[in-house]
């Protein structure tokens, strides 16, 4: 199980590395990347930091002893867990950022000044919890998109390219799915499938899939009529080859931009689901929901909700800014205008 989990992470990392390598050999992508770096350096760095944290939290193994929590020694713990040692870092209850005594009463903390973002009601370190939320957010936004987009591409492109029956079937499915208000469909799916990380991701995938399928179908329809595709067909190149050689590469910019937008959309939607009690455990949405009432405490407890809200905001903002930049850099239409 542990091996499988780590293997999955490694596969994803290897996959991303391979794509990056492949792209770097192409002049167009290399230049685009350079242009992106010039335009949005901060956003790229922020996303990279999130990725590293998420990665460190994904690699987990059993081993080592933990004095404070005997069970923890038997469970897989990630690099982040091992750095923070949450079992040892616990306090009795709330404490303010960098405080040396408890928020209520004046008991001294076990780790004065060590909690950069304070502790929550159960005395857990807020910085640690915020870091744990990174992986959940990447899972919700990234993994779901990574599954939904290839599916959408497969159906969208084949519908657009082959037309006729295939197109009718795909188009009908799309119309039906997109007719249902997406938040309601999402909720209905989770209500029916049950609460849990896998279920939420499946539901998000099912609802997020449609939008991109529509776009890629439209694009494939257009590309099919292009001269070079027509001539390839005349030369007897097989359909599969045409799709891989000519259609898909010309849709790469669409894929990337849609990925970024669907990523932020899913992360933001998860907060709504958390409010409804059907989000993912450990997500920022859940942290916000648990902490939203703390604003009414007197004196006010703000660090919990502030930490989760800021982490969420920074990630979504960075990805949004990157998506915005990408639109300028790699979208052929706007690029034409630029040059």
């Amino acid at each position, binding site marked *: 199980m542990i091996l499988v989990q780590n293997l999955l992470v490694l596969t994803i990392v290897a996959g991303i590395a391979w794509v990056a390598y492949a792209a770097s050999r192409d002049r167009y992508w290399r230049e685009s990347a350079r242009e992106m770096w010039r335009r949005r350096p901060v956003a790229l760095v922020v996303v990279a930091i999130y990725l590293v944290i998420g990665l460190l939290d994904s690699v987990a193994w059993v081993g080592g002893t933990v004095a404070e929590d005997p069970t923890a020694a*038997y469970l897989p713990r990630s690099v982040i867990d091992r750095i923070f040692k949450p079992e040892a870092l616990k306090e009795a*209850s709330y404490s303010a950022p960098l405080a040396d005594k408890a928020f209520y009463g004046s008991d001294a903390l076990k780790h004065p000044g060590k909690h950069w973002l304070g502790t929550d009601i*159960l005395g857990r370190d807020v910085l640690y919890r915020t870091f744990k939320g990174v992986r959940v957010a990447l899972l919700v936004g990234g993994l779901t998109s990574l599954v939904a987009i290839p599916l959408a591409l497969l159906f969208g492109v084949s519908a657009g390219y082959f037309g006729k029956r295939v197109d009718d079937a795909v188009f009908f499915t799309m119309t039906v799915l997109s007719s249902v208000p997406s938040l309601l469909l999402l909720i209905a799916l989770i209500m029916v499938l049950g609460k849990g990380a896998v279920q939420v991701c499946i539901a998000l995938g099912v609802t997020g899939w449609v939008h991109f399928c529509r776009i890629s179908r439209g694009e494939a329809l257009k590309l099919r009529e292009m001269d070079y595709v027509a001539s390839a067909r005349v030369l007897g190149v097989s359909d599969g080859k045409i799709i891989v050689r000519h259609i898909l590469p010309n849709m790469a910019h669409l894929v990337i931009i849609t990925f970024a937008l669907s990523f932020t959309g899913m992360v933001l939607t998860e907060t709504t689901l958390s409010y409804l009690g059907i989000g993912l455990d450990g997500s920022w949405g859940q942290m916000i929901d648990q902490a939203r009432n703390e604003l009414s405490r007197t004196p006010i407890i703000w660090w919990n909700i502030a930490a989760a809200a800021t982490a969420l905001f920074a990630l979504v903002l960075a990805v949004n800014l990157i998506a915005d930049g990408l639109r300028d850099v790699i979208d052929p239409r706007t690029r034409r205008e630029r040059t």
Partner: protein
Amino acid sequence: MLIRISRIAALFLALAWAGCTNDPYPDADKGRKVLYTSFSEVPKTLDPAVSYTTSEHVITGNVYDTLLEYHYLERPYKLIAGLAEAVPEPEALPDGGQRYRFRIRPGVRFHDDICFGARSPGQRSREVTAQDFAFQFARLADPAINSPVASSFVQVKGFQAFAKRLADLRKADPAFVKQAAHVQYAKAGGIEGVVAASDRDLEIVLTEANAQILYWFAMPFTTPIAWEAVAYYDGREGRPNFADHVVGTGPFRLAVYDKQLRYVLAKNPTWYGLRDEAASAPGVAFPSNIDPADVAAKRIDPAYAGRRMPFLDRVNFARERENIPRFNKFLQGYYDDGGIIKESFDAIVQGDRLSPDMAKRGMRLDREVEPSIFYIGFNMNDPVLGSKGGERSRKLRQAMSLVVDTETFLQLFLNGRGVPAQSPLPPGLFGYDANYRNPFRQPDQAKAKRLLAEAGYANGIDPATQAPLKLTFDMGNTSAQSLLESEFLVGAWRGLGLNVEIAATTYNQFQDKVRRGAYQIFRWGWNADFPDPENFLFLLECSNAQANSNGPNTANFCNDGFDQRYRAMKDMPNNETRLRLVKEMLAITEAERPWIELFHVEDFTLSHAWLINSKPMGLSYPAFKYKDVDPGMRERLIAQWNEPVRWPLALLVIGVIALAVPAVRTYYRERT
């Protein structure tokens, strides 16, 4: 352009300046005797045979009168006469049974309602007779009504036989079901032990002595019901269901019932208490024997002694789904009473009394321990935790019980508003011993570790897997808050080395697990129907087990010694023998640990200075007929507390102008 913007801004500012107010009520209601309060949970049904939750009893308890009532001021609770002329004494019958005779007060009338005109045009109401009580008893027995308390009346002679006759008749003849309820009941022959001896005499015959039965006559379950109302309000042709429409006899009518949003109780002009001949009835005038302590606490105004009730014109209930807005509106003065949210507790209550700020506002604080218990239960059918595991499992349960620190739990999640529970019985009940300390409920990590080792799980390691023993804490509630609470509880067990996982599922998934018996540890609560230990101990009796009968004994606890004593003490009057039996039963739960008793909730209620005569009644139903408000004081204080902060508006306008200036400048620069 700049001038135009600033002109619009000025207009907007002027409008907002004058119009900003957070007053949620129409101005027309100012100065009237209206009590404003809130509710969060929507009532499912107002049918008094079925309604069972506090949110429903708040209405039914005030619109339906009962034969007996609880005294508003005296504690411990005491029964007084309501619709009955006196509290009856039991008469022993030769066959070992008992009889209670109620004499019904004259001149009790149902609320004016069109249902009475359905058969005899022009009639708007009628007098209550003993038949109306008998009709309601038949409804309690009716299996189709599914009264949650039907089992409490099985000692009424012929109660179950009537239910069976009714069911048989329905099964035999489909046409029978289509008839009106009162016709069906008449054909089934009525309940033998509920006798309407005359229009004003009701006799209840029991098959065996039962000292607790009288409590049920102080609850809306046994209110008189008009068959006309049940027949008319059938949910067809645009008529509401009987569950959504009240035809009672009480001091208030249900004037508005928009149940998702608000409801309004209005004074009932035909209430029997307003008639001269009822002047001496105990439930009609404000009690005169007022406790000086209540006066000193400004809870009760002694000037009201002996005055005829009710005092209020209306009671306004507004829906508040979220606690925090509700509480803030209370603080702003828009609700007259309310509980304290935990977030503000420290600002409101300091050292068991109101903070100086709040006291200055004239607020009052009332505290009362509710007759309730919250607990963690083990599924006793589980092979690891349950009774099949014998001594090993018992020691495991004992060890787990030893590390749950209720004191800290209460501090963290309820601001300490609760009494740590030592046994299933809450304070104030027969058999409760304030000095008793349950040896397994005093946090003791070392002892817990020892017991765990004796159970064969040294340091929590399961010898079978050589890993920490894996258990599941099941919850059918996915809210963020309950997850936090569960994490606290589970943390204590993890400290022992047990790997307890939280399975927070949707309600459906949880129910499915319960049905399959696939659950190990759960959390639950219980609120008393009436102040008797039986009402708590039945939760652990075998025939009520979830696995046997879908009963409320979710722990599936089955213990012969416990059950024998339960059957013996169940209907006994409170005496030495009963006390001994209860103590013995508590000793069994102490050692067996089907539950880890957590706490009994202590209710803190705040009320504003203008709310008069409000005394908390944890058990009975808010008796609005005793309460009054001072609308003049309310209006004055609200105005004082709610002056809007207006300067940010001005700031906003300046901000807009500041944005406009560079725009205009850019514009002119580009043009020239």
